[in-house]
């Protein structure tokens, strides 16, 4: 339930590595926020600092405006779910879920009632008598979720809970987690390296890299208005295509001699900078494949990957590799020569510091 706030949080390990640097982040009451980033970006350290498993080196953490970063983990009322389930192997599923309640010495009938209610919600009633060794990965994770839920915590912290599961199980379970979270309204922070997963369940996503917060916003915010190259590349699958460009004037650019038409706002942003080391960014679904003509950037198809009613086509161009999303009936063959047309309204330009020109420098953080 609480509104969580990180203020200037930094975590430096004794050997000098700075896992989290100067983090300012707000998680709204009842929201599901994803911490998204590659391995080593600091997302796990952040969530562990919130749980109390790590001590914050600098900065404070607030829950509903009360300072919690000095409290031991037991006093913080958060429940954590780990990637490797962390179930007690010598106890049955029922006893695993009942553990936190037994620790609080609740009366036995009450424990039974609450555990079975959680089991019903998670649809694992028939598994209650089994030990973890006889449960599948998905079932074990549900028991882990049940154990976290049964305490009715104020905060839910999940560190890549679905990492070990098969693709379709992940899809199923993440929908369930989302359903549960929406129903119970518990403030939840979910750590993942998979942007598809983040897109699927998060109210908002906080992208991290190298210990720093890059951008926070809804999935569409990050997709349509990335502030820098890292966010633009990390969010969205297939990833954005980057091509080096030459500046042919104050408000025009070209890729290997091919002039690229730009939208009004982008032209204005281009005019506002003197930077000449620029990169063009465009998403695979905003590129069209046409017959090769000199006015367009031409290339050769190296690989076609069918994906249902569309296909991912890899094209080799003189400016570098590009990926295009094409609908299946218009699929080119491998080896074909093609021309690429970019949707001018959907282009991005990144300057030499990897920031997006379209992004207003004053307002950052989505």
């Amino acid at each position, binding site marked *: 339930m609480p509104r969580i706030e990180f203020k200037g949080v930094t975590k430096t390990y*004794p050997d000098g590595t700075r896992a989290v640097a100067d983090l300012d982040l707000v998680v709204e009451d009842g929201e599901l926020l994803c911490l998204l980033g590659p391995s080593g970006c600091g997302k796990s350290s952040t969530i562990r600092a919130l749980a*109390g498993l790590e*001590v*914050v080196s600098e900065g404070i953490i607030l829950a509903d405006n009360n300072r919690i*970063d*000095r*409290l*031991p983990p037991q006093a913080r009322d958060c429940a954590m779910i780990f990637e490797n389930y962390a179930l007690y192997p010598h106890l049955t599923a029922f006893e695993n879920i009942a553990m936190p309640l037994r620790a609080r010495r609740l009366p036995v009938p009450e424990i039974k009632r609450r555990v079975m209610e959680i089991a019903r919600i998670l649809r694992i009633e028939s598994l209650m008598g089994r030990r973890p060794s006889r449960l599948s990965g998905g079932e074990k994770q549900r028991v882990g979720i049940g154990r976290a839920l049964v305490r009715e915590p104020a905060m839910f912290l999940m560190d890549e809970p679905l990492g070990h599961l098969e693709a379709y199980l992940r899809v199923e379970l993440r929908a369930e987690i989302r359903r549960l979270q929406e129903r119970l309204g518990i403030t939840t922070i979910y750590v993942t390296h998979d942007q598809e997963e983040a897109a699927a369940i998060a109210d908002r996503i906080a992208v991290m890299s190298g210990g720093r917060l890059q951008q926070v916003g809804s999935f569409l915010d990050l997709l349509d208005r990335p502030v820098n190259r890292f966010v633009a590349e990390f969010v969205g699958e297939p990833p954005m295509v980057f091509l080096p460009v030459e500046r042919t004037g104050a408000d025009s650019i070209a890729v290997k001699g091919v002039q690229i038409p730009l939208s009004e706002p982008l032209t204005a942003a281009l005019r506002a900078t003197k930077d000449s080391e620029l990169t063009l960014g465009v998403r695979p679904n905003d590129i069209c494949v046409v017959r090769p003509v000199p006015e367009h950037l031409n290339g050769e198809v190296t690989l076609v990957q069918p994906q249902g009613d569309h296909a991912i086509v890899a094209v080799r161009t003189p400016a570098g590799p590009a990926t295009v999303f094409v609908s299946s009936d218009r699929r080119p063959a491998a080896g074909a020569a093609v021309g690429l047309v970019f949707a001018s309204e959907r282009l991005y330009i990144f300057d030499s510091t990897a920031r997006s020109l379209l992004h207003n420098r004053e307002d950052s953080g989505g």
Partner: protein
Amino acid sequence: MTVALIRNKELGPGSPAAWPIGTLRYLVAAIFTGFCLFPFYVIVTTALKTETAIFAWPPVWNFKPTLQSFYNALFVFGGRSAVFYLINSMVISVVSTFLAVVLGAMAAYAFARFSFAGKGHLAFWILSTRFAPPVAFIVPIYLMVQKVGLLDSHIALILIYTAMNLSLVIWILRGFFAEIPIEIEEAALVDGYSRLQIFWRVAVPLVRPGIVSTAILSAIFSWNEFLYAMVLTQSRAATLPVYLAGFSNSMGLAWGEYMAVGTMAVLPILVFTFAVQKHLVRGLTFGAVK
């Protein structure tokens, strides 16, 4: 430094009780360590003291070390010198340790990887050989060794020590072998190796910490074993503990020399352990498999 060490332990965010608890821990650890090491300290210092210093009361902490006791023990005393018994001990310990580890490793691998009829029973039987105190078997074993004509021979002790160490080696190494992810061995099968080759080239290198620890344990056991050595040997194959036991003579106990031989008895094992401990690395198979 202590304070920095305490901070590193992250005893809880700013909790006020952190500081005294840390020093208390160190104090307790220091006392306990001192308690354990003290007898060894006494042995070594006594071996290095002059006779007057040995018997001085209150005990002398600052003394001038002398190698006289060592010299006497090695060269002056009659009968066979300590070196003879040292060599006996070495031969017996090294050979029995080697045999126990090699045979035990192969048996442990079989237990870990293969399934065969009666495996559980066999494993239990091997463990059961450790249930009874060794002294219970001393008479039958003496009779057996005598009948075969191997009294006072190196071979008798080697065989007996090997047998005694085998059960421990098998039990420890079985766990180590079982921890090797089976996929690594399957990969070697596909790559063209036979089971035996896989055992030597893949499995054994991966259980190096297990091999080293069982070798150390076996060596220590064989080196220190007294009862069977005492009963089954006389002069030719007598080991160092037997020699030490017979140290007192009509003139009483020569403390300095006694302690000198004692120091010499401890040194080889110490040297061996220090030499191999770097192989006691944990997690040799970490990272090979996700």
